[in-house]
């Protein structure tokens, strides 16, 4: 791995082991799952058994008969305390418990409460609901003009100005339509030497954080505490306050450690129900999902992507049209933002003069889809890098050479018109090619084991505009603490942020105490998502530390300590206050500049504060008799600016790639009439240790992010981008067949091989 030199104080750029590692491996770290409060009730929900239906009646009498049941509530009961009980970050479309109608199998319809989880569960199972079933729609393309309408009327939240035009729209499943037009794409097709058109699909998958979602609502004398495994404590506070009509200061949100998030625990999930229940029962209420229930809570969008390219005689892409359909499921969650914020990168990291994009966020009767490690980017890269490879093959140009010819270089405009800046796409591509030894002869295997190799590169725009605030508190003995609402869900943010503080204050990072999110104590942060924390919170933390440093220096001057003195901090405090007393509080607040895309053309000259670049190279072996694909080499390369902590960055890269490997090869939520038929770890498989390729390399290209803290930017998602198309491209390379649907199962590979050989396998 390429290692940058550490910064002057030696704290940034250091591979410091994670600060919380010891507590975690010795079982001492706090998780909401382990929390028990006096008098606490356990909630279990009764879930919809139909995909789309009117609720005719709910009978809770049998559930209430169960010995030990405290209460059983329905959506109408919630209404007594929250008159408009609909929540969501983009649309206020999701009822806390179903009201009048259910829109997906697994939707919470009623809740049972008891001191004992088993009692609550049994009671929940005895809730009897009668539905009048309605026609349902499951496919994203069918949802475009389906007669089955999931929501009678669209209810954009108003948080995001670019959704306002959808307010009150009826008879549509389109939650957002994003359009981009640059140049003359039809003209480009008309004058092209070659035109290529393909359609690609991705499947619905789940985040599977090993700690399932969990929240506890705790009523206080005049407010509410929410203990929750959330990636966005500040958002939870704002949304709960809005639902209750309370000021923000009456809601306290606390987040200890998370056992993984990956986007599943964003915005608001279980918090609304536990808040309502805590107020209704005047007791602490805990709701923890099982792994199975998570499949009905949030997932990753299934997509259909139609991509069409015009190429001139010299192999230059002159035009590209992208039609992307995102299967958002029954509730919008953050889907509309995925549609827009990722949608504008749909043509890929290529220099194309004429571009048209249509990106649609669709409601269907599947479980909701939201953000999952990449915010829609992996679905797009899957399509455009498969398409790119197909074009190169068709034109008989080496796939790496074809990319070189068309790659988006520094200073050139991206589809939105924003000029690329600090985006080392070319370096990432070249590093992948170098580590793959691309120009050397390649062993293609023999007999029934054929070998192939492939690459894929992708890019992502950081989601904007978002705000982070941090406090750095220097105590009177010279020790210090960082107060921030970034959630360390395993990505190592506590450690990286401590390193920033340490670098500025010239202390050891191990000695910086990081205060976990508590909205009564730690300041606002938009959320821990989209690899935004390093850049946004990193800047806020750096500003806070610098502010504290300046204030401390001012205090030293005020008590007559000469500049450049090596007097210990504690002595400065003593001189000021006559004893060990006082604080120096540094404050940092950061929001990057941004210009939202034009509502008609999709153009903006400042679409993002920074770009994330990821590239993947793979070597595989295909068993031509069974279709099994074995990954023998996996090269992950990213431009993430200057790494704050190289070792953590490396584990982020390999972790992201392995996660995407599961989504590529076998993870798949299977449905029967809207019901997930494999909603358990027995039947929904994620990669295990034996699925990890023997040879993995992680590389950071030598780059620096302008405006990033010490030149750094986010990296949590970058290694997901190229994995799926790199593998499909390698399969094509090995056995000459093209798969256009994920996952790339052994069965689909063998079917392809046999079809090509003129000996197809029957249905």
């Amino acid at each position, binding site marked *: 791995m390429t290692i940058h030199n550490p910064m002057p104080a030696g704290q940034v750029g250091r591979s410091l082991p994670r600060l919380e590692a010891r507590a975690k491996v010795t079982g001492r770290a706090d998780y909401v799952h382990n929390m028990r409060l006096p008098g606490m009730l356990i909630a279990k929900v009764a879930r919809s058994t139909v995909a789309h239906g009117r609720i005719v009646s709910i009978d809770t009498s049998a559930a209430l008969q169960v010995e030990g049941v405290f209460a059983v509530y329905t959506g109408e009961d919630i209404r007594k305390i929250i008159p408009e009980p609909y929540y969501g970050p983009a649309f206020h479309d999701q009822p806390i418990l179903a009201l009048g109608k259910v829109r997906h199998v697994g939707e919470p319809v009623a809740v049972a409460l008891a001191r004992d989880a088993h*009692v609550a569960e049994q009671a929940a199972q005895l809730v009897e609901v009668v539905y009048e079933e309605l026609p349902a729609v499951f496919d994203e393309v069918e949802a475009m003009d389906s007669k089955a309408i999931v929501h009678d009327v669209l209810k954009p939240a108003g948080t995001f100005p670019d959704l306002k035009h959808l307010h009150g729209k009826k008879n549509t499943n389109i939650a957002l339509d994003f359009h981009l037009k640059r140049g003359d794409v039809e003209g480009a097709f008309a004058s092209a030497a070659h035109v290529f058109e393909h359609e690609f699909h991705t499947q619905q998958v789940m985040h599977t954080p090993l700690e399932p979602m969990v929240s506890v609502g705790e009523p206080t004398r005049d407010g509410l505490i929410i203990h929750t495994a959330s990636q966005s404590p500040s958002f939870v506070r704002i949304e709960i306050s809005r639902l209750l009509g309370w000021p923000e200061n009456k809601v306290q949100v606390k987040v200890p450690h998370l056992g993984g998030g990956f986007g599943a625990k964003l915005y608001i999930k279980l918090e609304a129900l536990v808040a309502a229940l805590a107020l209704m029962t005047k007791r602490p209420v805990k709701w923890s999902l099982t792994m*199975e229930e998570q499949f009905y809570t949030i997932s990753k969008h299934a997509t259909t992507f139609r991509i069409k390219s015009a190429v001139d005689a010299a192999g230059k892409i002159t035009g590209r049209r992208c039609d992307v359909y995102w299967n958002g499921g029954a509730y919008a969650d953050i889907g509309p933002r995925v549609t827009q914020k990722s949608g504008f990168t749909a043509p890929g990291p290529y220099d194309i003069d004429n571009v048209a994009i249509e990106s649609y966020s669709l409601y269907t009767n599947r479980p909701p889809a939201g953000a999952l490690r990449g915010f829609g980017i992996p679905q797009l890269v899957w399509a455009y890098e498969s398409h790119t490879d197909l074009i190169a093959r068709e034109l008989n140009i080496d796939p790496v050479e074809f990319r070189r010819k068309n790659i988006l270089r520094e200073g050139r405009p991206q589809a939105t018109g924003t000029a690329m800046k600090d985006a080392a796409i070319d370096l990432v591509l070249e590093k992948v090619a170098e580590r793959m030894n691309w120009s050397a002869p390649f062993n293609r295997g023999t007999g029934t084991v054929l070998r192939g190799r492939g690459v894929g590169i992708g890019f992502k725009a950081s989601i904007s505009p978002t705000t982070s605030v941090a406090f750095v508190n220097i105590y009177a003995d010279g020790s210090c603490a960082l107060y921030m609402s970034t959630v360390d869900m395993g990505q190592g943010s506590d450690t990286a942020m401590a390193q920033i503080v340490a670098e500025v204050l010239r202390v050891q990072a191990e000695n910086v105490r990081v205060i976990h999110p508590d909205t009564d104590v730690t300041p606002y942060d938009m959320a821990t998502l989209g690899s935004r924390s390093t850049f946004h919170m990193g800047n806020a933390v750096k500003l806070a530390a610098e502010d504290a440093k300046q204030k401390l220096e001012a205090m030293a001057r005020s008590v007559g300590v000469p500049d450049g003195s090596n007097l210990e901090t504690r002595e400065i405090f003593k001189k000021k206050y006559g004893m060990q007393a006082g604080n120096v509080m540094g404050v940092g607040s950061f929001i990057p500049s941004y210009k939202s895309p034009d509502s008609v053309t999709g153009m903006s000259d400042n679409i993002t504060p920074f770009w994330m670049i990821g590239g993947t190279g793979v070597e595989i072996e295909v068993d031509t008799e069974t279709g099994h694909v074995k990954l023998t080499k996996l090269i992950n390369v990213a431009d993430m600016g200057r790494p704050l902590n190289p070792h953590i960055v490396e584990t982020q890269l390999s972790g992201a790639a392995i996660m995407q490997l599961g989504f590529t090869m076998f993870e798949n939520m299977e449905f029967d009439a809207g019901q997930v038929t494999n909603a358990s770890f027995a039947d929904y498989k994620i990669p295990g240790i034996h699925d990890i390729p023997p040879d993995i390399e992680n590389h950071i290209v030598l780059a620096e992010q302008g405006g990033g803290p010490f030149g750094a930017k986010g990296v949590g998602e970058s290694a997901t981008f190229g994995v799926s198309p790199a593998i499909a491209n390698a399969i094509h390379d090995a056995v000459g067949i093209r798969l256009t649907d994920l996952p790339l*199962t052994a*069965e689909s590979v063998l079917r392809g091989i046999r079809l090509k050989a003129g000996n197809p396998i029957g249905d």
Partner: protein
Amino acid sequence: MISFELAEPKTLNEAIALLDAEDPEVRPISGGTALMLMMKSGVFRPSRLVSLQKVEPDYSRIERGSNGSLRIGALANLSQIEHSDEVRRVAPVIEKTMRHLSNVRVRNVARLGGNLAHGDPHMDLPPVLSSLGAKAIVAGPSGQREIMIEELFGGYYETVLKRDELITFVDVPPQAGWSSTYLKCTTRSADDWPALGIACSLRIENGTIGDVRLMISAATEKLTRLVSTEKVLRGQKVNEATFERAAESALTEAEVIGDSRGSASYKSELVRVYVRRALRQAGLGVTQS
């Protein structure tokens, strides 16, 4: 309500007496790795569980007979079997199978008897043990009976055991002259339940197949002995052509069912390939997976 009775008898006879031939809510539990999942998901709600943890230690012993046979107590856990010298000396295929059977935490807890009595067609040990010619010794209120492993299963998650019968031992006959292999095919993650299991034992005499036991699991409703295919093999020369004919026969003989691990037609293709590879491995010592 949702409470249930947990009995912990000290003897096997007491355990049998606590079972109920008519009541499906009364079940024995040994390691509990499968039963706990069924209870967690609400598929099974017991009125009484009869724990076998405290019965006589005889039922967890592993012994090798002087003739080279093997007797494995039904309460031996899978790790114990995996690491047993006796087992390795008689049937090394069992140890090899164990390495890819679930994971070490499950193997430390799960017991042989439960592994068989669960009736899950995706288990690895039933095809392996049946291809070794093993039989289960079963005890009930009216005494003992012996059941060949391949005859233990009545259908999908069904066995021929009565509700008040317990497997006490598994007897593996001497393996001298036999060569055995087990191939497990997963189609999703490496640690997935198999889409197909093929176990075969060959007795080769002078380059000819003297005798054979060929089992298929996971892709079929229950563990199935491929009797017709065995006939195709018996008395034939050990060569590729023989294996190829057997693979074609197995493809026709096996009643393969489709599920989320693969369609029936795909799994049929796998049967052809894996039968050939298993025979090759057992017959020629060619290692290929």
